[in-house]
């Protein structure tokens, strides 16, 4: 066609002279060739990209399989050989090994006999029977099924047929030949099955017996294994071999954990972290050195955490953040890019991941940084301005309770009016009979209502009283400043609290001099003088001793004459308190802090007037050298300047002082800060970096090479904590009041005090950042979230109380921890100070407290540790009367006491509710024998009997027997008196019993003096007693009363000891 057209239209020229049309005749070979080549290249590139560039983990897996893992296993193998040689040579191993061998040798014959019976008599018969029984049973079951269904269909004919078949099966005789029997037997169905059942039961019995017999041996073996494991890195060469052979069959693939907790949205996710982190769940520990510094291959640093958070169930990303699916690059997988909302926190903040589930846990055993952060948040009163779920819930509860009270009172008033009206109607002679009748009918219901409301009111009032006791504020009450403070001290303090007390909890507000004057004037004029008794002089020397020995230093720090700065930073450092407070006030405060500040955490140490005065007298001498204040009347006129009151009040309200302090008239002030419960998941755009957005987007983190931008949550929190004003920089404000209000809690990097304490400050900041960073709206499946119940809930609740009142200042609560008070030089081994017997003068450990004491008694003790209202005995301890250090009275609410009691029960893992066990009374000679054991064991050498007049604190530090019967759980007593060292390692309590051949506990042989104390008569009775001495003593203690104490006191007086 084309040629036709061209022929028709072409000029009649010579065809050969016409050039060919390039469109029709030109070759496209080259363009076609080149474009196909381009297509092939791009296709090949796509394949390469898909296979390798997009799967960088393959390279990492290759490194692991061919280089890192084999070397690591080899290294571990040689280490383990060395390790095990060392462990095997140690004495403890040898003794444990000997014990294990002996135990297993002891039971070997019995075990062998049982084993013999099992293997020779039982198992062969079972073997013969099992197959025929199985066949017959399944055949019978099939006919039963068919017969049932035929019956259900109404086909009785069929049913009968099947039942016939069934009968045939059951009647069928099976010939069985048991080993060791000459003739084969012929059994039917029932015979076979009953014999089979019997044999199976026998097998179970024998196995159970073997386990029971071998238990002691197994335990000894377990102890040996445990020792080996503890001593060496306990790597089994066989385990390494199996890991090695695992490498041979390694598959290059995406290794993922698929977590599915439900079908709803957000209940399913996939974590592919182990595609690269190949050693993270390695059964043998792989340290950084083992894997040649390749961080991605180390095993999880806290394998014990993985036990409670099994990765198969929890995955990785719920705790760690990051993009669990991502594999294309390290940044993407770790979620450290703009669009991933849950990035992997940096190392110092890694514990942030715990918060989402453990938000209201005050303490987590493994999360040190997080605990520190939460503690700072709690102790420094961050919650005074920033609401945070779980902190200070009492205030809200109090508010709602007060509302409930008001409504109940109103309801009562209304009902009372109604009752009055009805009574009037009934009594009025003008009322019609119907009206009277109606009034009579209605009155009982109204009275019932009134009664119910009254009961309710009592309950609410009780709850309110409790809540009032529980509500605390971090700072002191400011309503008594005129009585408490030296006026000249106030302004310098307000200007810079850290200048006066570097470790103070009070943050620094950026006040100028004028503002500080105004705040001081407001506080001064707003205060009411406290009612004080005129305190007499005190003895500062004695005061200092009391301060050191009574336990003040469990919370406070101070520089003493004898020692450097000692104590704890839970409460104020008292080293300069003399510049601040007046003697009269201090004396009264020390004696009863609650008198002056109903929201004080400081407990009542039950000091006598004189003791309190002595301590106060010493404290007022505590001043810094060369500290000067302009205290002339002229310099202080501002305090009474009425003109400053308004400005001061405005500042105090604006800065939220009432968040931490009680201030007259500001009781109902709301919190001023932003709620932080979910601050970590606030969109980044809503964190205002101000004019510094751009700068922070390009600010390299000196600590992390891979963190090129600090424009993220971490950067915001960290830098704000370092310098609260930072985001104000470069902005112009219409008024001072528009600026950031947040005060600085640490010296800013440009302030003195930062450089010296940089490490500690940065650690604090990291800790708080971790806490806030982790405070997010949890995105993990609800089924995985932690909702404690029972013991776990008791622990969660209890830790709040423990931390609130700083129980750990004096007491050991977790095994192995050292309370700050225990660190005092006076409590060191061999030290002696003013009657404190060194190690034994410390407050007791509370590890195991739950299983030790009776819960009811414990609760009463917490309410009044003096255990008495007798004003004389009140100034002392109820249990450890000999201890110089005092268990104070905390004014705990009933709820808090019960939380504590349950907490200690939960710590001891006591799941059952407790009721006092009945203990058999002592009969006949038993009382005499028990008394003999008591005297022979010399119990009253360290334990007070109760009722003593003079107490020597150097020797009688042990608990007094006075509250013995009510205090101790009899179930615990025996373990304690027989093996005290296994209950509290290192205790001063001696073991007075030893086991005889029959496994009974008998008192150890006595020396001559002790024998003399007992006398021949009792010695004879003691020797004649056939029972267990320890059991007897337990029963004796369970019935201990004042008469017994009196008996022993008298006895002691007679024997002169």
């Amino acid at each position, binding site marked *: *066609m*084309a040629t036709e*057209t*061209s022929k028709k*239209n*072409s*000029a009649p*020229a010579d065809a050969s002279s*016409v*050039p060919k*049309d*390039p*469109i*029709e005749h030109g070759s*496209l070979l080259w*363009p*076609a060739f080149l*474009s*196909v080549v*381009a*297509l092939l*290249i*791009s*296709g090949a*590139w*796509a394949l390469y*990209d898909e296979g390798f560039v997009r799967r960088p983990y393959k390279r990492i897996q290759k490194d692991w399989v061919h280089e890192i893992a084999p070397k690591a296993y080899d290294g571990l193998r040689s280490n383990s050989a060395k390790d095990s040689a060392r462990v095997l040579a140690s004495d403890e191993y040898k003794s444990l090994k000997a014990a294990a061998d002996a135990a297993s040798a002891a039971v070997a014959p019995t075990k062998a006999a049982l084993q013999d019976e099992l293997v020779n008599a039982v198992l062969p018969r079972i073997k013969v029977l099992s197959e025929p029984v199985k066949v017959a049973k399944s055949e019978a079951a099939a006919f039963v099924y068919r017969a049932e269904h035929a019956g259900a269909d109404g086909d009785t004919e069929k049913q009968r047929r099947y039942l016939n078949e069934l009968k045939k099966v059951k009647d069928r005789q099976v010939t069985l030949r048991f080993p060791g029997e000459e003739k084969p037997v012929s059994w039917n169905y029932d015979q076979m099955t009953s014999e089979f059942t019997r044999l199976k039961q026998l097998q179970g019995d024998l196995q159970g017996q073997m386990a029971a017999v071998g238990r002691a041996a197994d335990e000894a073996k377990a102890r040996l294994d445990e020792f080996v494991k503890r001593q060496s890195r306990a790597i089994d060469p066989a385990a390494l071999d199996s890991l090695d052979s695992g490498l041979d069959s390694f598959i290059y693939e995406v290794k993922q954990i698929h977590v599915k907790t439900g079908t709803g949205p957000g209940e399913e996710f996939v974590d592919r972290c182990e595609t690269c982190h190949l050693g993270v769940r390695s059964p043998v520990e792989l340290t950084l050195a083992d894997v040649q510094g390749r961080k991605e291959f180390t095993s999880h640093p806290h394998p014990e955490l993985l036990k409670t958070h099994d990765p198969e169930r929890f995955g990785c990303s719920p705790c760690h953040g990051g993009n669990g699916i991502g594999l294309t690059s390290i940044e993407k997988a770790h979620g450290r890019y703009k*669009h*991933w*909302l849950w990035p992997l926190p940096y190392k110092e903040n890694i514990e942030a991941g715990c918060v989402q589930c453990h938000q209201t846990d005050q303490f987590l055993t493994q999360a040190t940084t997080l605990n520190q952060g939460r503690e700072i948040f709690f102790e420094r009163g961050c919650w005074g301005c920033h609401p945070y779920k779980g902190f200070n819930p009492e205030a809200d509860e109090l508010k709602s309770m007060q509302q409930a009270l008001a409504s109940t009172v109103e309801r009562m008033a209304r009902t009372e009016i109604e009752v009055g009206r009805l009574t009037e109607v009934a009594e009025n002679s003008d009322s019609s009979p119907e009206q009277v009748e109606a009034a009579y009918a209605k009155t009982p219901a109204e009275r019932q209502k009134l009664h119910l409301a009254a009961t309710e009111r009592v309950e609410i009032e009780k709850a309110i009283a409790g809540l009032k006791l529980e509500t605390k504020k971090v700072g002191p009450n400011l309503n008594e400043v005129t009585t408490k403070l030296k006026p000249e001290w106030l302004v310098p303090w307000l200007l810079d609290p850290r200048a006066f007390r570097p470790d103070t909890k009070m943050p620094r507000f950026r006040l100028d001099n004028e503002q500080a004057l105004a705040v001081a004037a407001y506080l001064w004029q707003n205060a009411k003088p406290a009612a004080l008794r005129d305190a007499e002089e005190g003895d500062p020397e004695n005061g200092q001793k009391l301060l050191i020995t009574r336990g003040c230093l469990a919370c406070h720090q101070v520089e003493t004459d004898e020692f450097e700065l000692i104590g704890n930073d839970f409460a104020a450092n008292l080293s300069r308190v003399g510049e601040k407070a007046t003697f009269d006030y201090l004396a009264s405060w020390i004696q009863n802090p609650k008198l002056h500040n109903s929201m004080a955490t400081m407990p009542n140490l039950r000091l006598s007037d004189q003791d309190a005065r002595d301590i106060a007298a010493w404290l007022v001498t505590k001043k810094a050298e060369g500290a000067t204040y302009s205290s002339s009347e002229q310099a202080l006129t501002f305090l009474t300047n009425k003109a400053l009151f308004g400005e001061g009040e405005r500042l105090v309200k604006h800065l939220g002082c009432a968040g931490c302090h009680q201030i007259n008239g500001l009781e109902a002030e709301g919190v001023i800060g932003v709620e932080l419960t979910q601050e970590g998941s606030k*969109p980044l*755009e809503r964190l*205002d970096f*101000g004019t510094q*957005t*751009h700068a922070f987007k390009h600010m390299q983190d000196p600590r992390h090479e891979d963190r090129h931008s600090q424009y993220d949550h971490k950067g915001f929190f960290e830098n704000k904590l370092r310098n609260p004003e930072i985001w104000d920089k470069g902005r112009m404000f219409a008024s001072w009041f528009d600026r950031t209000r947040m005060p600085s809690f640490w010296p800013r990097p440009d302030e003195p005090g930062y450089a010296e304490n940089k490490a500690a400050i940065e650690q604090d900041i990291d800790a708080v950042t971790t806490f806030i960073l982790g405070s997010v709206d949890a995105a993990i499946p609800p089924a995985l979230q932690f909702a404690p119940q029972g013991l776990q809930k008791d622990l969660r609740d209890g830790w709040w109380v423990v931390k609130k009142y700083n129980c750990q200042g004096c007491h050991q609560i977790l095994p192995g921890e050292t309370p700050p008070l225990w660190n005092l030089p006076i409590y060191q081994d061999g030290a002696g100070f003013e009657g404190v017997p060194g190690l034994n003068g410390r407050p007791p450990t509370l590890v195991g407290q739950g299983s030790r004491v009776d819960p009811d008694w414990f609760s009463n003790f917490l309410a009044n540790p003096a255990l008495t209202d007798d004003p004389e005995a009140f100034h002392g301890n109820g249990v450890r009367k000999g201890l110089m250090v005092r268990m104070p009275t905390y004014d705990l609410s009933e709820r808090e006491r019960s939380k504590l009691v349950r907490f200690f029960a939960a710590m001891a893992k006591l799941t059952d509710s407790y009721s006092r066990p009945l203990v058999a009374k002592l009969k006949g000679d038993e009382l005499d024998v028990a008394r003999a054991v008591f005297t022979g064991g010399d119990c009253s050498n360290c334990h007070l009997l109760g009722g003593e007049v003079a107490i020597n604190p150097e020797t009688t530090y042990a608990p007094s027997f006075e509250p013995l019967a009510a205090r101790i759980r009899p179930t615990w007593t025996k373990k304690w008196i027989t093996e005290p060292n296994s209950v509290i390692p290192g205790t001063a309590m001696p073991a007075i019993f030893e086991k005889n051949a029959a496994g009974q506990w008998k008192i150890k042989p006595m020396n001559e003096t002790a024998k003399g104390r007992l006398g021949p008569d009792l010695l004879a009775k003691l020797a004649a007693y056939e029972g267990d001495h320890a059991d007897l003593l337990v029963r004796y203690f369970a019935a201990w009363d004042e008469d017994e104490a009196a008996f022993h006191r008298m006895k002691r007086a007679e024997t002169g000891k």
Partner: protein
Amino acid sequence: MDWEQIWKLVALPDNVPIVLLLVLLPFYLWMAFSQAFKNDRLIARLEADPDLRKTHHRTTFPHHPSWAPTVHVWPHLLKREFIAMIIVTAFMIVWSICLDAPLEEPANPNLTMNPSKAPWYFLGLQELLVYFDPWIAGVVLPSIILGGLMAIPYIDTNPLGNGYYTWKQRKFAVGTFLFGFIVLWVVMVVIGTFIRGPGWLWFWPGQTWDHHRVDHEVNYDLHAYFGIEGTWPTFFFGLGFLLALGGITGALTHLFLKKCYPRMLQSMSKLQYIVMMQFWVFQIIVVVKVIARLVFHVKNFWVTPWFNV
């Protein structure tokens, strides 16, 4: 000059098509016009040759008087298209390797992104939202654009220029299309992509896109410039203004066409003429409104109790 800001916008995978557009559009314009001018010169030469004047001949390059004026689709066009297809496929593969889909975080209805932008090809329409009521910018104007595009074959019945580039033979058609395409679409897309930052504020290239930028800009309705108040006075003022604007635009266009393209006018039916003029006037009014807003801060021409234009 914030070079990083510019680079971020240019390098964003979302914006690659527009960057390509900025390069390719001038290139193809140049290519089309250079061919068109060449063809125009060829046509002029052929027209001037008395021998060839009346014969049917090829009016495009490569040219020889004896070559057929048309060639067959198969194989001559299709083999070229096939090569083009291969090249485009290779290009798309390379593109897909080098640039990943720009995924972002999961959508959060409580926190919409700022600036919140439509896909790049819709940014012109989104930009129109700045100047018109949503229902006008989002419903009426797109409908008019579609209607106008559909009407073109019925308005433009000129057979010249089929199969070859020419400017001389279709000045009005090519000019109108380029005006609509470049001014009302490409420029709007470019503004929407590169100029509109957070808060849909106007950021010149090189200005940092600051989320917290505070700006003062107040627009007034046209009647406010004339001190007219009250519902009905403003209603009639706006209506009158729009009618006058449309009338003047129409009249000027008519005079222009009459002077320059009298033959075109003659060849059009009344219906064709009215439809063409409608679309033309609408197009001009949209541009006038955009300029009035950007340069003179005029919010609306016509304010009624129900809608504004």
